[in-house]
């Protein structure tokens, strides 16, 4: 009798503890700060399919600004951006170890800004975002041990200590942030900056040859990082994205260059090849990070290196890599929405220099009886002085998504034009690949045509062709104020 109650008690205790552990795990997942500057890149990394990452990018936010969408779009390179805010080399190292458990990249790219960090431990936020995304395991424990002094081990181990305050700001997203609910696989970690609040530092530092030694702990883990990768026959590429203060930091990167040579590793210092890459003053978001304009140039350059010197394959079309397609599409949609300023659009156009047409996703606003679409079509030639835009491409394609009740309807489009250049223009309009307009217009006229939406879709691909313009000869076609669609 006594034994039975003992067993009963033991069973009750065990069940209770199990409930507790499950609830505790759930609490942790809900309360953890879903920061996309370290925590979610790591969390979503775990959701990637096995061996679908060809290039792993590690580093602080200066790495995070590189867009994996651009890499895929231009080169079909499957890259994942495993970065963290202010991530020092030791966190990069443990992140690498963790990543290599489930992926076998061909190249590992490390951004070496942490070479200029002069601290033993990051600040509190840095410690959190660079460790809390990791799953429980030896790497997690090691990361804690190295990232923080011993008084704070418990704090990082039980992240709930910091996150429980979030009870004041919980949102729906917090409760849905589980891999089986959310589509974590279609995130590749990059963070895009859209603003341009400061000019890029484009000083010429070719004359700076001094060396400044790295902080000992930083150097130790930089070496460990490189060695760990090389031991597993993974190639390493070190890069330095544009710095906020080139001259002050250059000596550190000279030192990095020396270390790179020691290991036979390539080091691309964008501060020294800015002209080759084509950086301009406006490519910077806040002086330290590049915005999407700069990102396109930079990533393009690096992608080129990866393709030609490291032979990273082109995965476009492969079924396993469909998440990259989706990611790229997601990012592009976001770019169009975010870049509301004309300069952004100009950059958008500039980057598609190879293409004969400009692709635009135009947001449609319904207002009373018509549908308005703001059209910003800039080509970066010069500042507009009025509130209209013009194009110099031979083709201008606008993708318009109408409200659902427009399916199958007949619509009339009116492009309010501010100016038609060169006297007159022959304009051909195709809507969803069928020609609906072909006439010459002269200055002062507006472009108007009819078209029908398909019965099963609300999307109209409206292509304007200007046959008089040859590709890239930089003559203007017309200046559009806006487009109004009426039924």
């Amino acid at each position, binding site marked *: 009798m006594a034994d039975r*109650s003992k067993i009963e*008690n033991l069973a*009750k205790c065990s069940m*209770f503890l199990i*409930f*507790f552990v499950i*609830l*505790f795990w759930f*609490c942790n997942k809900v*309360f953890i700060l879903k920061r996309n500057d370290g925590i979610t890149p790591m969390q979503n990394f775990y959701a990637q399919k096995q061996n679908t990452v060809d290039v792993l990018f590690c580093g602080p936010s200066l790495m995070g600004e590189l867009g994996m969408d651009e890499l895929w779009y231009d080169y079909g390179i499957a890259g994942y951006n495993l970065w963290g805010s202010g991530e020092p080399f030791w966190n990069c190292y443990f992140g690498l170890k963790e990543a290599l458990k489930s992926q076998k990249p061909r190249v590992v790219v490390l951004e070496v800004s942490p070479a200029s960090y002069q601290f033993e431990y990051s600040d*509190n936020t840095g410690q959190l975002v660079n460790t809390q995304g990791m799953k429980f395991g030896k790497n997690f424990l090691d990361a804690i041990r190295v990232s923080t002094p*011993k*008084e704070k081990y*418990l*704090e990082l181990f039980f992240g*709930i*200590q*910091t996150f*429980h*305050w979030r*009870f*004041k700001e919980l949102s729906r997203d917090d409760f849905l942030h589980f891999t089986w609910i959310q589509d974590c696989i279609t995130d590749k970690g990059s963070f895009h900056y859209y603003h341009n609040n400061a000019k890029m530092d484009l000083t010429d530092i070719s004359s700076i040859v001094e060396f400044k030694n790295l902080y000992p702990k930083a150097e130790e883990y930089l070496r460990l990082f490189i060695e760990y990768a090389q031991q597993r026959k993974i190639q390493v590429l070190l890069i330095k994205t544009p710095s906020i203060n080139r001259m002050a930091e250059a000596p550190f990167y000279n030192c990095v260059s020396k270390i790179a040579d020691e290991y036979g590793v390539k080091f691309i210092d964008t501060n020294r090849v800015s002209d080759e890459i084509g950086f301009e003053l406006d490519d910077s978001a806040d002086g330290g990070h590049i915005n999407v304009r700069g990102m396109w140039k930079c990533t393009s350059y690096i992608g080129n290196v990866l393709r030609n010197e490291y032979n990273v394959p082109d995965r476009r079309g492969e079924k396993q890599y469909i998440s990259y397609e989706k990611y790229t599409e997601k990012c592009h949609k976001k770019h169009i929405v975010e870049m509301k300023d004309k300069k952004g659009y100009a950059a958008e156009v500039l980057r598609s220099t190879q293409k004969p047409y400009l692709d635009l996703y135009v947001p449609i606003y319904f207002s009373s009886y018509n549908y308005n679409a703001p059209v910003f079509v800039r080509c970066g030639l010069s500042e507009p002085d009025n509130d209209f835009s013009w194009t110099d491409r031979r083709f201008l394609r606008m993708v318009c998504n109408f409200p659902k009740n427009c399916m199958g309807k007949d619509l009339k489009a009116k492009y309010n034009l501010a100016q038609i250049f060169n006297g007159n223009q022959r304009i051909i309009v195709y809507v969803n690949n069928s020609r609906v307009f072909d006439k010459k217009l002269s200055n002062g006229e507006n472009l108007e045509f009819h078209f029908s939406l398909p019965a099963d879709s609300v999307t109209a691909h409206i292509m304007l062709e200007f046959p008089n313009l040859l590709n890239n000869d930089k003559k203007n076609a017309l200046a559009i104020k806006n487009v109004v669609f009426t039924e």
Partner: protein
Amino acid sequence: MHFLYNLLKFIVDDFSIMSFWFWTCLAAFAVIYYTVGKRLRVQWILLLLASLFFYRANCSTKLMLWMLVPVCLTYLVALVINNLQGLRRSLLLFCAVAASVAFLVYFKERNFFIVTHNALACVFNFGHWEKVNIAAPLGISYLILMLVSYTLDVSWGLVKPQKNPLKFLLYVIYFPITTSGPITRYVEVENQLFAEHNFDYDRFCFGVQRVVWGMFKKMIVADRIGLIVGTIYGNWENYTGFTLAIGLLAYTLQVYTDFSGCIDMALGASQILGINLPENFRQPFFSSSLSEIWRRWHMTLGFWVKDYILYPMLKSRLIQQFSNFLKTRLGKKNRYAKLIPTWCGMLVVWFTVGFWHGGSWKYIFGGGLFFFIMIAGGQLLEPLFAWLIRIMRIRTETASWRLFHRLRTFFLFAVAVSFQRAPSFKTGLCMWKRVFVEFNPWIFVDGTLFNIGLDAKDFFVLLFGGMIMLFVELGEHGNKAESISMRRWIAGQNIAFRWIIYLGLVFSIIIFGMYGPDYNAKSFIYAGF
């Protein structure tokens, strides 16, 4: 070995009763206690080792050695005192008690004498002394009271002196009580500390539940009130009227939830090990008078001063002679002939209570003399009050009258306690003056309440936690015996309900507790004694 030493050092970095490591170690200790300890019959030795470790972890070696001085003294005196007679006996007793008290005063209340000396120095023109703030051995205020109680109990024949010095040491530094009491008398724990304890599942569970409840009170309620109190006390010149009053009165609530939460944790921890310690709180704010509240608030202190100061004083020949003198002069049936001698005793008692809290006037007044004034004043003016009640036709058996008494008691008690947190007695007076400078009832609706240290969400968590506390206290109020009724009631329910409550409590603490970075939960109010 090196690893073990490093591990110990790492743990001991912070080993207060609020630390994670303390509870983890306690869990591990309980396992050893009930397995190895029971089998080898060395449970009390394990307790002693644990208590030594705890003491050393919270206190420097030097102070620990200092602590041993009065302990050894008391131990030795207790062994010999009953062999002496007459004058020598009284003298030894007096010296022993005086030495212990002096020891306490040296460490804790020294500044009182320095300040008094400086005041006299101003008048008589001699040199000033510097105020000194020195570290004291852990729990010295509680320790000394326990030692004095032991000495007196032995001399009064209430208990046999403990011959084993190690067992005596265990009594003095038993780890659940060193931080903030309760002030435990030797008779209360003698049988339990050195006995063998079997593992009792129910008792173990109740102990754990009590600990969790204590954490709930401290981490969710007390520390939140602390933010309000800190904001208002820290900036009192900018507050007036009701806002200031809220801060001043809330301090008492903070002390209550903090202290009683701490006591719950201590008593719960002890209960896990099978040792029942005396209660310190019994729903104090349900009291109807200031005398009653001191039978329900910090009970062990109240009983201590009653048994070891008040009674000896009132029974002493001096007071008896004074009493007889008054009786002959004022008449045997005269109220005042009975009251005045008790007032003398009470004055000493209240002064002591206040002085024990701290050696400055804000403590002496806020912790003691205020109550003396109120109680003695109440007794003095009793005929007046009786007359008022009669002519106003107040019915004293109604619930509304009882409620009035409770509210009045709480208010007066809170006023006294509020002085203890003020920077000084004078500042305390200034603060209370400011309360009446402005009549501002609008602060209750214009959002000020969310700007005095807690934002709206924290405020609601506080209110909700407070309501739960109130509910539990109401449930326990009816029960005169141990405060175990709530736990038993829950234990009598079905398992799903029980587990929802237990898990709910635990996760409330994890989610809503005031802990973690940016927050220091180790500021016990009564642990500075």
